[in-house]
């Protein structure tokens, strides 16, 4: 019962193909295109922020609009760009990597994706609602989002519900695929490391997206149905919101970084021409990070008020995360040690990721120390820290993954010259943008402000310069990818990379519409 290749007729045919598709490759492509479109929208917002902050004084945005822009920048980047792009990788690569014909539930897969544009239509429409868009910051702290939130907050709440449904369904689908659709003979421990990273990520998604849904539901009832969950007068507490939000929020951060670990763990061995060092320990490290992510949330709220014993507990658990993370960094470096290294663009991005993410991790360790955190809390140090983790971390790994797999997806190599240019510009500008933020924060510049004291002027000008450079570098990336998709590059073989291991390289490039309709045999060493 196999179906023919889709042969769309006219525009209507094309729309039908993409809207009704149940094919994991189509859906993966949709996720990636949607994710990168949102990345450019949210990136444009970040340039608005940096343009505002280029020098002291008010230039571009009034303070109210500034708050809306930073809120929407954060939410759009996390829920609109990073998560969908990672889900796009999952859709394309998981069935290919484990020798499955498709995801376990192809219809559900379609729904998971198409919910996103609908949800983001609602989220973006908040910008045009009377009273202005959501302005409480991406963390939506009560009572900023409840008592003092604009009417548009309600639209944001329902769009978060839709995003939650999408994420939970996608995660269930991924976990069912990984547990049941592996080719015979591929035991769990033999499963490729990227697939493993997504197994753990999917578990985190199923565990915490309902928590976010419940929390925003309470926000909604506080706003409209007279409850006082986040209101002390009725026996609730705004602090409760922070606890619930970060119980979601911290695992969420690892949802964004674990698949990145998976991508890097695939790329480094290929270009080192060596198997991944300590594969088993890498898998256990991912699991360990995921488990720990549930018991560290209160480190986001050290200054919000909590018992000393609680503070000490969360301080130690947070520092404990650096152990499995350290294992991963060590293993990547050990994989490269004495390898026959070549530095194609994916490998450059991977090495960039390892070094930059380590910096982001180290500043995280600084933030974990409760007494020191009293100084860093809500300063630009925090902004610098998480942008190192998410931009210099997750985003660089995504570029690495795109360059690594795009020949498999399109059948053509990208332009290596433009790829390298993109890498060097991105790496340099990321550091120009975010490195000064640490010093600004240590010197006392608070985050989420549209204006600042004169003493912060020089560093802020550097940050803005870097941000615009980074934005420009992404245009090179977009051009390079569009050219590759149009088939302008060199034709790629099925193997693509000389030393790439794994089932996805056993099919031709571009990967046929239906792969592995009969389960492949796996070689003993994979």
């Amino acid at each position, binding site marked *: 019962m196999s179906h023919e290749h889709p042969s769309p007729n006219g525009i209507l045919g094309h729309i039908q193909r993409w809207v009704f598709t149940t094919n994991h490759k189509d859906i993966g492509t949709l996720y990636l295109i949607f994710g990168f479109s949102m990345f450019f929208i949210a990136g444009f917002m970040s340039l608005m922020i940096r343009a505002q902050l280029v020098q002291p004084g008010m230039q571009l945005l009034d303070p109210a609009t500034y708050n809306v822009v930073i809120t929407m920048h954060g939410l759009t980047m996390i829920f609109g760009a990073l998560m969908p792009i990672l889900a796009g990788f999952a859709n394309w690569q998981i069935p290919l990597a484990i020798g499955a014909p498709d995801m376990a539930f192809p219809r559900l897969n379609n729904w998971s994706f198409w919910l996103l544009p609908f949800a983001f239509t609602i989220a973006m429409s908040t910008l045009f609602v009377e009273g202005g868009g959501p302005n409480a910051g991406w963390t939506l702290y009560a009572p900023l989002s409840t008592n003092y939130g604009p009417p548009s907050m309600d639209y944001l709440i329902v769009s978060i519900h839709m995003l939650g449904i999408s994420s939970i369904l996608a995660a269930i689908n991924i976990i069912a695929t990984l547990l049941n659709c592996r080719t015979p003979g591929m035991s769990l421990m033999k499963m490729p490391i990227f697939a493993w990273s997504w197994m753990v990520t999917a578990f985190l998604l199923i565990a915490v997206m*309902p928590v976010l849904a419940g929390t925003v539901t309470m926000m909604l009832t506080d706003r409209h149905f007279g409850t006082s969950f986040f209101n002390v007068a009725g026996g609730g507490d705004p602090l409760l919101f922070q606890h619930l939000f970060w119980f979601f929020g911290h695992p969420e951060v690892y949802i964004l970084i674990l698949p990145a670990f998976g991508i890097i763990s695939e790329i480094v061995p290929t270009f080192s021409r060596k198997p991944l060092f300590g594969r088993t320990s890498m898998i256990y490290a991912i699991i360990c990070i995921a488990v720990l992510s549930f018991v560290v949330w209160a480190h986001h709220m050290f200054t919000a008020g909590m018992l000393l014993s609680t503070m000490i507990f969360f301080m130690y658990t947070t520092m404990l995360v650096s152990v499995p993370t350290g294992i991963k960094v060590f293993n990547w470096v050990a994989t490269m040690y004495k390898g026959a290294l070549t530095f194609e663009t994916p490998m450059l991005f991977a090495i960039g990721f390892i070094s930059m993410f380590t910096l982001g991790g180290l500043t995280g360790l600084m933030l974990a120390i409760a007494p020191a955190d009293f100084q860093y809390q809500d300063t630009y140090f925090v902004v610098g820290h998480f942008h190192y983790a998410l931009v210099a971390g997750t985003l660089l790994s995504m570029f690495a993954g795109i360059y690594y797999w795009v020949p498999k997806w399109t059948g053509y190599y990208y332009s290596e010259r433009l790829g390298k240019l993109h890498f060097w510009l991105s790496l340099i500008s990321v550091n120009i943008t975010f490195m000064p933020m640490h010093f600004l924060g240590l010197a006392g510049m608070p985050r989420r402000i549209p204006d600042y004291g004169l003493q912060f002027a020089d560093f802020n000008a550097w940050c803005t310069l870097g941000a615009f450079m980074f934005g420009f570098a992404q245009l090179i990336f977009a051009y390079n990818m569009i050219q590759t998709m149009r088939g302008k590059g060199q034709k790629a073989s099925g193997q693509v990379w000389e030393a790439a291991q794994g089932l996805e390289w056993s099919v031709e490039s571009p990967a046929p519409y239906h792969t592995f309709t009969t389960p492949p045999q796996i070689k003993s060493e994979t």
Partner: protein
Amino acid sequence: MPRTTYVVPPTYLPLIGCAALFCLAIGFVSWLHQLHYGPYLAITGFGLLLLMMFDWFRTVIHEVRAYQLDDDPVIDHSYRWSMGWFIFSEVMFFSVFFGTLFFIRVFILPYLSGAIPEGTMTHFILWPDFKNIWPLLKTPDPQAIAGPKAAMEAWGIPAFNTLVLLTSGVTITIAHWGIFKKKIKQAVLFQTLTILLGILFLYLQVQEYAEAYHHLGLTLGAGAYGNTFFMLTGFHGFHVTLGTLMLMVILYRMLKGHFTPKPFCI
């Protein structure tokens, strides 16, 4: 042994589902904002969602029966696992409200009443009269948010309803065994009984809510006690409603002879 794969054909169902949720979401918020089209849009969305789900499940059932997909252990296990993980997500959803109840009782109220940390100033500055007595009949600021006149008694409808739910667990197990042992009459009888128990539960819960609102002054807005009471029992009642609907569909399919003692049948 290589297995051939069933390739799922393109589908319009998710698009309907998206449109339905979109209308429901926009309609609901518009309703809250007193826009006149709100209720109509929300109800249209909800109806569309039900239709979509009906169509979706029907499609899956037909497909599985037509191609005997239930013989495929891969598909069998996928459905089981996904249901398991879905239930896990529900557990996490409910844990938000249980966690809230826990946090209110163990941290917030002792804090506001000055018990932890000892000698805290918050208590004396904000509401020095506040005492931490659960159920919370007197909120920290009764002028702003009035508490209920009385709490819901555990003995009475709640205890009886618990018994109803536990019994329905027994009856559905007997129905399940009826299918295993090919005693279809037993299965149908006890399945029907389970559905009736579900409906009885919901009926009694409506009575309970009516009593709470009209006699006890216990409303959703009645401070922390009312908030958590209605949030937890409300979402639970919603789940019982959905579960009863599912049981009805299963009963209908039992009567059509869809279920056999095979280890898996969808």
